[in-house]
């Protein structure tokens, strides 16, 4: 665990420098932008937002994972439960950063925050955006943001506390309670994850809307979260912890990653095909920008997104043997994490930066967030037993076979 901490600390240190250097380079390149902030600053805001939304989502997915497996009375996953619990360590800091970036970025991130955009008679007036004023106004928006983070944080803490008390005292009472807590959390999460996707990602393209978007963002978070849990489990296993974790547990996690990669593709395609087929200008503009807009800047990414997030996991993890081999799972889980980070890049960058986005600042910021996430996650992981020893299903998990 100490190695993990040192490694992630080194991560942060090393990549701060990378990001710092990148900012320097960006500063030199900033040329225009009288109305907006300089390009490097807009890029920084956009990349902070992108990486933060990505890691915050993964963080919440840890608790969703625990909650789903609790209400389903699932026994096999007890072996990785503590990893999923530890993921939620990032919810609170991530939420604070989200708020800070939201206030600091002004209208650089969200077009609907432009001065006077909702006031008739103003030079910036936009009737369509003004029509969304009831939902997209700062008070309600920030209120929702705080409420969502608070809900996710509260239920993560509650589930974690119940599990820790169970470690100390034993008995099935804590587990019984955590079923109720999980069920409540899942209902709330279903609503909050969907609305947070509209708020944090879809409202960037303020004119545009898609009814599939909540699911789309959730699918991306969820499959990344599973890949994260899988990678952490493999890392711990190879470092000599989690002795009872065997190929059967990894097989099941691999199945989940395989299945939800397909699920993500299904949602992605459902959104794409309806918009493509109906070809309504106000909807199609979203894919116009991404497929050929800005001199084809995002075209390669558009197709690469599908290859790395669908074709690659689908073809590689199809056989049973691949899902039971650590090296295959490692490669695919890493690819899925990078792929879905790029997926969020695709959702956020064209709307905020148009053609000005790059990769150096963005990757640097992503790595800083990765370092921060790993730091808090490994710290929380080291605070309790890696296996909830008094969980009623722990025996079942040890003897799990697929």
């Amino acid at each position, binding site marked *: 665990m100490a190695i993990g901490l040192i490694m992630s600390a080194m991560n942060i240190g090393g990549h701060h420098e990378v990001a710092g250097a990148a900012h320097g380079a960006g500063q030199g390149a900033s040329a225009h932008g009288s109305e907006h902030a300089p390009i490097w600053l807009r890029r920084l805001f956009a990349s902070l937002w992108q990486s933060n939304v990505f890691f915050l989502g993964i963080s919440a997915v840890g608790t969703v994972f625990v909650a789903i497996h609790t209400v389903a009375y699932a026994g096999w996953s007890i072996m990785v439960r503590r990893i999923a619990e530890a993921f939620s360590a990032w919810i609170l800091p991530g939420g604070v950063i989200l708020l800070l970036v939201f206030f600091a970025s002004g209208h650089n991130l969200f077009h609907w925050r432009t001065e006077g955009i909702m006031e008739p008679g103003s030079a910036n007036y936009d009737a369509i955006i003004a029509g969304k004023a009831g939902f997209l106004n700062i008070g309600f928006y920030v209120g929702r943001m705080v409420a969502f983070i608070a809900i996710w944080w509260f239920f993560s803490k509650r589930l974690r506390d119940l599990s820790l008390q169970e470690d100390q005292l034993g008995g099935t009472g804590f587990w019984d309670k955590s079923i109720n807590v999980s069920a409540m959390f899942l209902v709330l999460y279903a609503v909050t994850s969907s609305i947070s996707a509209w708020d944090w990602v879809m409202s960037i393209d303020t004119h545009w809307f898609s009814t599939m978007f909540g699911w789309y963002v959730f699918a991306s978070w969820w499959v990344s979260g599973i890949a994260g849990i899988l990678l952490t489990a493999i890392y711990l296993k190879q470092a000599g912890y989690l002795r009872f974790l065997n190929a059967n547990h990894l097989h099941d996690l691999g199945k989940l990653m395989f299945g939800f990669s397909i699920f993500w593709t299904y949602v992605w*395609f459902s959104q*794409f*095909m309806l918009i*493509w*087929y109906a*070809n309504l200008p106000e909807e199609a503009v979203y894919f116009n920008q991404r497929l050929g807009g800005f001199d084809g800047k995002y075209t390669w990414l558009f197709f690469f997104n599908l290859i790395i997030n669908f074709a690659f996991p689908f073809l590689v993890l*199809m*056989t*049973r043997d691949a899902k039971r081999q650590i090296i295959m799972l490692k490669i695919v889980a890493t690819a899925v994490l990078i792929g879905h980070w790029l997926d969020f890049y695709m959702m956020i960058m064209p709307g905020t930066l148009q053609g000005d986005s790059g990769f150096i600042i963005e990757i640097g910021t992503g790595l800083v967030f990765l370092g921060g996430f790993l730091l808090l996650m490994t710290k929380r992981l080291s605070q309790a037993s890696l296996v909830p020893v008094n969980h009623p299903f722990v025996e079942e998990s040890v003897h799990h*076979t697929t």
Partner: protein
Amino acid sequence: MTKRYALGIFEDEDVLLHAIENVRAAGVKIYDVFSPYPVHGIDDALGIERSRLPIAAFFYGLCGLSFALWMQIYMLGFDWPMIIGGKPHISLPSFIPVAFELTVLFCCHGMVITFYTISGLYPRMKVPVMDVRSTDDKFVMAIELKEGTDMGNLTQLLRSNGASEVNEKEMTKE
């Protein structure tokens, strides 16, 4: 053709699993084991190889996919081109749903047909039952009795591994 079997009746699945291992370790070939419900780990204990059905399924799926794409491209692109929604005659995104469905259809039917064929199953087939209690609460291990097999030794082996009774049965197969 008539064959004779020694039937070891077991009451408990754990006892059965250990018995399978010990009987195989003693060099006796087990014909089959009948249980009222699927027992975890019994495939490994019996040394049954994994089915290669998934590989066949992959190729059935590939066939379905190719067929669906060929069908749509040929029909809508060459045989009877129609303009639908102002899209090109051959527009891949609109072919995906049908391609997906036909992949699944070919895959499922191919798998079911292959499974029935290789398992020798067919409708209204008469299944010989070794011991009717294996459909209720008992586990039955069947060992084929070849000529010269010592029934006494076998009984001893099964008994010592937890069989509650050992019977002998003749089965006639067409």
